[in-house]
């Protein structure tokens, strides 16, 4: 018996992870495949198990939800909202305002298939929306991509830490598979963190008051503000790139994949290594900032072939190509509509990029 291990869905683990890191408020509008998050939180709110969890509201719309999240965040409290693609689109308005007002909040997107209603299957097609800003105006958010249920439980804590450190929205980009997947996990002990909230609205003190506004009517003021947001993100690019590597040291081909695709890629790398095929995996943990330094280092170290595996019609591959700048061949294996490639397909695509794969293709071409 191993009583200290839990067995939870990704969505449930995320909810408990947030509660264990001192979540104060959750506002959301239910949407499959993320609804276990509000369901789990509603139950715990009703039980009152987590005294710091002071507010749970099923909002009337995603707009209401994100703006309630903004209100709570403005007081310096830890606020979270969760949704899936169609709801993520609606939340973009508020995310733009939160980015402009430099509010720390956590937004979870359990990516389903799109555009439009799409279906309930897993996709990674909200990558652009999450990593390039998403709402109007120029800004970037930090985007975290878990690839397992234990990480779904762990990343709310990391997310709030980054959100408060840099005073900005942090997006936790999961996918429908991870949301529904159940795995064993052990909750890490997360010490309660106190963050600097001296900027928050809590009532004026004498002549000192706090105004959180995204309105800068004087043109130079707005210019300075956007420049400030940009330089803040540049600092984040320098300090917060996170990734995981498997068997990249002598790799001829490196697979770049995150989320559920990284799990498939792990299996493919293991299987290929069993056959002495020199393939490795670079798994971005922060999609924004993209782990460009590690990717650069791999290319500088001699990796000439990159295979991007993602559940969209080619989004992260653009960032990989941007880093590679023509120094490495970048191919991609894509699936959409909720379908996943098999690990065999990942294996084959990676092997095709090795020198033996090249030789075989050349021979096949000659035969034909």
């Amino acid at each position, binding site marked *: 018996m191993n009583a200290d291990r839990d067995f939870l869905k990704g969505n449930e683990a995320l909810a408990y992870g947030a509660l264990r890191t001192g979540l*104060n*408020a959750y*506002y959301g509008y239910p949407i499959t495949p993320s609804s276990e998050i509000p369901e789990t939180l509603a139950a715990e709110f009703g039980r009152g198990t987590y005294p710091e969890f*002071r*507010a749970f*509201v099923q*909002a*009337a*719309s995603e*707009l*209401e*939800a994100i*703006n*309630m*999240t*903004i*209100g*709570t*965040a*403005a*007081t310096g*409290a830890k*606020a979270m909202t969760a949704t899936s693609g169609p709801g993520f689109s609606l939340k973009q*308005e*508020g995310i733009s*305002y939160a980015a402009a*007002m430099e509010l720390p909040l956590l937004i979870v997107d359990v990516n389903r298939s799109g555009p439009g209603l799409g279906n309930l299957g897993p996709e990674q097609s909200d990558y652009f929306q999450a990593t390039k800003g998403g709402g109007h105006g120029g800004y970037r958010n930090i985007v975290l991509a878990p690839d397992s249920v234990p990480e779904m439980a762990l990343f709310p804590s990391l997310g709030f830490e980054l959100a408060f450190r840099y005073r900005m929205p942090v997006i936790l980009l999961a996918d429908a598979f991870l949301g529904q997947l159940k795995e064993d996990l052990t909750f890490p002990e997360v010490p309660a963190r106190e963050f600097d909230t001296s900027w928050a*609205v*809590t*009532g*004026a*003190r*004498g002549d000192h*008051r*706090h*105004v*959180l*506004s*995204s*309105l800068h*009517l004087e043109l130079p003021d707005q210019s300075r503000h956007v420049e400030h947001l940009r330089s803040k993100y540049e600092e984040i690019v320098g300090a917060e790139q996170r990734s995981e590597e498997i068997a990249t040291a002598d790799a001829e081909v490196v697979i770049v994949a995150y989320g559920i695709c990284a799990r498939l890629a792990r299996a493919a790398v293991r299987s290929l290594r069993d056959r002495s095929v020199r393939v490795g995996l670079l798994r971005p943990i922060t999609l924004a900032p993209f782990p460009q330094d590690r990717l650069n280092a791999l290319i500088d170290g001699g990796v000439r072939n990159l295979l991007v595996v993602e559940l969209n019609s080619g989004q992260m591959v653009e960032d990989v190509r941007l880093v590679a700048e023509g120094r490495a061949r970048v191919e991609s294996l894509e699936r959409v509509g909720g379908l996943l490639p098999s690990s065999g397909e990942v294996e084959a695509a990676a092997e095709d990029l090795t020198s033996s794969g090249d030789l075989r293709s050349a021979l096949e071409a000659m035969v034909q």
Partner: protein
Amino acid sequence: MIGAQELYETKLGPLPTLTGKPTHYCAGCEHGTLTRLIASALEDLGARERTVLVSSVGCSVLAHEYLNVDAVQAPHGRAPAVMAGIKRVRPDLLVFSIQGDGDAASIGLLELLYAANRGEPITIFLVNNAIYGMTGGQMAPTTPEGMVTTTTPFGRDLHQTGPPLDASKLVASLEGPAYVKRVFLPVTPTPSPEFFNARGALEGARAVRHAFEVQQKGGFAFVEFVSTCSVNWKLSVLESKRYAAKVLAPLFPAGLYRDRFGVEAR
């Protein structure tokens, strides 16, 4: 010799809850009048240091420049949701917004109605001047039939746009709110063409005070101020007050629609 200044004592003076910054409001605009009423009420309640203003979008977008309190900017129409988010985790704070008719009764109607229906303990002041002032005079949900605006250049046609929307009645149709009141805020013409009465401002002052008290008792408070917009109505200041008295007052009659805690009775 005694200076004339020392002979007088102040009955009404400057309010520390006002920043003193000149407003961007047009001459004779009730937005300015309301700002003073709010500052005065907050001082009466000794609440300035526990108050958060949620600035909305519209003419009141810069309200935080004039009111010397903590403030958060809400996206267009979303002020009630932002207020609810503040109040849910900080029930000790006094949270209010000044919304326009476009903000509250059009783009943010859902946020208004749901905050009202849940009875969120917040205070909303709606300035209904029947037109979009900040953006240059487009049709508002509350524009009366026939009014010429930049988007109804031949006058508002109700067959095309539906009738003016009555926000106070809509809010009062819900169970959630504890206090719903509509006040005619402009100065009102009297039989003498040279005199106007200021009853609106005095009633407004009471309503503002009551709306904060209701929030302190845990209720949702909503006060609609029927107002004017002389610049976009293309009338002089005093003509706009006469027009408001003639056209808007019957369309949006002043009245008390809900007073669950009986604050008016005292």
